[in-house]
């Protein structure tokens, strides 16, 4: 293909966008909305996993050991727990240590009150972190079933909530992505059909004089791709705007969110490149695939 021909074809693509501007605008809008919805839900889910993993790192389960067991029994228990697949780290925390740190946290009055207690009421414990927090309840159940375990306490309800939110978001995003891709393809292939129709005379003559199929299809392909890329550019801008708005809310109101590890949110700048590249590729691909579906179907070249 010659440079002059390529220039001609690209020019035809641009012209065709303008000629069918209503339909091009429709494709533009639908790609824009799709990219925005998909992009924002992916970003949301990304941040949620980050928060969850932050909590994962911090969250410990506490295993209370029955009182009065022997050294061997305790060693066996340690081995049993550490060999469970989801257990990451296990540290023994003796009742004396627990007592000491508890006393340190007390007010003077309380310390005075407990000074005369000769018996330490606290049990020996293990502090345990897990590899995958989503399997926390499973792991706790396994540990509870072991001998010499008094009880297992884990911060499950909050993480369970976060995990179920994340799961719902993931499912919704996948559903949105599928639905939107389908809608995009339908709308774009309709746009192309309109521009194929507008140019049917040219196409007819092109066929008679021996233009190759590729040559006939390229302008439509370019038309779709340009619309896709323009939509991607716009989506990038809007995403930045929306994301930074949300980011600001979370990063200023410390009282509520800092507790939850919200200072861990990704800044938009750190994601910019990834968002840019994925939007551009997705936009161009949707545009190009949409047009090639309908050129294949309607041109019959």
């Amino acid at each position: 293909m010659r440079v002059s021909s390529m220039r001609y074809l690209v020019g035809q693509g641009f012209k065709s966008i303008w000629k069918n501007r209503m339909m091009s605008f429709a494709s533009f809008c639908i790609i824009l909305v799709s990219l925005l919805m998909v992009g924002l839900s992916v970003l949301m889910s990304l941040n949620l996993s980050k928060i969850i993993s932050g909590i994962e790192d911090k969250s410990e389960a506490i295993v209370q050991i029955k009182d009065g067991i022997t050294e061997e029994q305790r060693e066996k228990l340690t081995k049993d727990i550490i060999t469970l697949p989801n257990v990451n780290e296990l540290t023994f925390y003796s009742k004396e240590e627990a007592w000491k740190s508890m006393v340190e946290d007390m007010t003077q009055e309380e310390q005075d009150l407990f000074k005369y207690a000769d018996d330490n009421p606290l049990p020996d414990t293990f502090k345990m972190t897990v590899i995958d927090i989503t399997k926390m309840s499973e792991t706790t159940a396994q540990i509870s079933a072991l001998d010499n375990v008094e009880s297992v306490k884990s911060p499950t309800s909050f993480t369970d909530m976060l995990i179920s939110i994340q799961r719902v978001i993931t499912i919704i995003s996948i559903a949105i992505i599928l639905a939107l891709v389908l809608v995009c393809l339908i709308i774009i292939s309709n746009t192309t059909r309109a521009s194929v129709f507008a140019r049917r005379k040219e196409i007819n003559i092109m066929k008679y004089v021996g233009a190759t199929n590729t040559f006939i299809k390229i302008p439509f392909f370019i038309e779709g791709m340009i619309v896709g890329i323009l939509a991607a550019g716009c989506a990038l801008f809007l995403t930045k705007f929306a994301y930074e708005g949300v980011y600001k809310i979370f990063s200023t109101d410390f009282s509520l969110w800092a507790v939850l590890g919200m200072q861990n949110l990704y800044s938009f700048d750190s994601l910019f490149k990834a968002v840019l590249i994925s939007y551009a590729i997705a936009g161009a691909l949707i545009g190009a695939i949409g047009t090639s579906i309908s050129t294949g179907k309607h041109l019959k070249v």
Partner: protein
Amino acid sequence: MVEFKDVSVTYSSGVDALNKVNLKINDGDFAFIVGSSGAGKSTLIKLILKEIDATSGVVTVNGFNLSKLRRGKVPKLRRTIGVVFQDFRLIPTMTVYENIAFVLRVIDAPAKYIRSRVPYVISLVGLTDKSKAYPTELSGGEQQRVALARALVNDPKLIIADEPTGNIDPALSYEIVELLKGINECGTTILMVTHEHDIVRHFGGRIINLNKGVISFDEVVGGKAK
């Protein structure tokens, strides 16, 4: 060269459009194809352009065996053929010059060649002063001359003119056929489909008459013009 060997075409509707047609048109020939509507003239042209395939028999055009020609190679065949239609089929949004240059562009010709070739063919059909006009600003005869220039521009071996005088004044019709004759004298094979017997009688030459899918007459007849 165009050659038909025992070519039959049966459409899916069951209509027999051509029935065992044998025909040979040599390089440099000028032939009229006549016949009433439904005789198979359009089918014949569609076969040559490989818009349709023969149900049986072999069609050879400019060295291509069309029954063996793959879809992807059809553009190669069509680049050796120029077509003129009854309804001109010019692109209304393009000037005369652009309509003709368009053909060279879509076959990926060098820009420099386009710039020299297009004015030349426009001068051949005598429209140099109209090269910046749009088709709607031209008379029917002029539009058909533009179409003729467009068919000529990539220097085809064969030009098919499908009722080229059907949509223009009788007086101008002769002009078009004379142009075709002139092109033929330069070595291009011309196949002209028509049902205007006056024109055929006037110019004479090889006349192929199709009747219900069979060639009923194929002879060279002397015309008044010579």
